[in-house]
């Protein structure tokens, strides 16, 4: 059986950096070396390029872009992406995969979200969900909130239905996504 391509994602890469200034280049270079990569010049046939904001014009190498909205780039992460995210994305991009951060995907100038009444949680349901996120069992939730186990089960069921979730993990993930989309500063 042939080795899947991702099996080789673990190796060291030759990365060329283009960034806005020397300081930024130095920061990124240090980060890359800490993950075992080699920093090379763009003329030295790198495996992958790491760029700020925009794909560089000599963009014939797979490129990971940090920040900006360059949707043509193979990889696109937020400007403040963590080192581990940059490392993972570089490895993926170098192997011909396209990488987008879930955070980047949410950007773009968008309309205010008018929530549907029947899918909104009540404050009590939100409390229950917070407790689920803390890893509490139904029994522990009942104790924390001073309500009966029966009532907790009733609320949990309602939370799952409103969020369209079938597991506790899924409910927590969906609620977090929704909270980010629906919270508004006025």
């Amino acid at each position, binding site marked *: 059986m042939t080795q899947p391509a991702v099996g080789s994602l673990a190796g060291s890469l030759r990365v060329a950096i*283009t960034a*806005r200034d020397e300081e930024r280049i130095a920061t990124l270079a240090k980060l890359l070396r800490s993950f075992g990569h080699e920093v090379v010049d763009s003329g030295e046939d790198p495996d992958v390029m790491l760029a700020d*904001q*925009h794909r*560089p*014009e000599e963009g014939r190498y797979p490129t990971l872009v940090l920040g*900006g*909205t*360059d*949707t*043509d780039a193979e990889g696109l992460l937020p400007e403040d992406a963590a080192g581990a995210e940059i490392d993972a994305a570089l490895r993926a991009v170098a192997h011909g995969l396209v990488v987008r951060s879930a955070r980047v*995907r*949410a*950007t*773009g*100038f*968008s*309309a*205010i*979200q*008018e*929530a549907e*009444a029947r899918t*909104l*949680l*009540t*404050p*009590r*349901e*939100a409390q229950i969900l917070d407790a689920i996120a803390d890893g509490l069992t139904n029994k522990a939730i009942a104790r924390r909130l001073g309500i009966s186990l029966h009532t907790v089960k009733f609320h949990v069921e309602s939370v799952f239905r409103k969020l369209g979730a079938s597991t506790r993990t899924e409910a927590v993930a969906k609620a977090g996504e929704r*909270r980010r989309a*629906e*919270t*508004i*500063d*006025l």
Partner: protein
Amino acid sequence: MAQEPNLLGALSDLLVARFAAARDSVAALRLSERAHLGAILWRHDALVTSQQSLPDGDTLEAVLPDGSRVPGKLAGRDPATNVAVIRLDTAARAPTLTASTAQVGSLVIAAGSDGGGRPSARLGMVNAVGPEWHSMRGGRIEARIQLDLTLAASEEGGPAFDTAGGWLGMTTFGPRGQILVIPAATVERIAPALLTGGRVPRGWLGVALRPVAVPDELRETAGEVTGLMVMSLSPGGPAAKAGLVPGDIILSVDGTSARRLRNVLAHLGGDSVGKSVSLRLIRGGAVVPVEVTITERPEA
């Protein structure tokens, strides 16, 4: 046999002519040696571009329609409507922009720049036109115009035109790769305020809110099935001063239901600053009224 008229050629020639006529408003902003962003030469002394893609910084180099490079300064940026204005240090030749409104199904030409003064063109269709809408950041946009065309990142912020050469507005990226147009009417309302005052005044309550369902047992008293729950307060902000606390659920603002966020936003326009509004809240199981004096939203 009579020769078939070359209708496609005629269409193509018309597009070329229309694009050439529109060129005098197609500009760009150089972001680095290699990167640039689309822009509209909106007046002889000012460019308009897409706020969300404009990096931080006060001085910029503009590329004018004739290819010349002119330094400019950021006059102001309005995240709520995604409009940013750059004042040019040297006056350019005034463009001939005639605002027009979008029709669904009509052809549209979007323009960008290669960053060196040569224009780039995109042809597509007006995919959808909707009524006035509010952005996530609370700004009012005169119409929702969605285009069916491809746009490079470096072309965002440029002008879009109809086939008569009418200026529809500024192109921008919406959610999930949608290409939106900030209508000319919105640009014409926001850009002058940015150019003269550097900002667009907006009302501010100083609260982070999220919609919640009103608990069953309170629905009758509240007269609402949903409300906006206070998640956090800006210290010293209007809501904090009025005594709002996290967990309060706003039901209405001056008698307007808070069920729709856009209704609440309508109370927070530029003319609301200094005014007092009456909020109906659920607090601790009871419905209480609270007066809040709106102040101007501080700069982000």
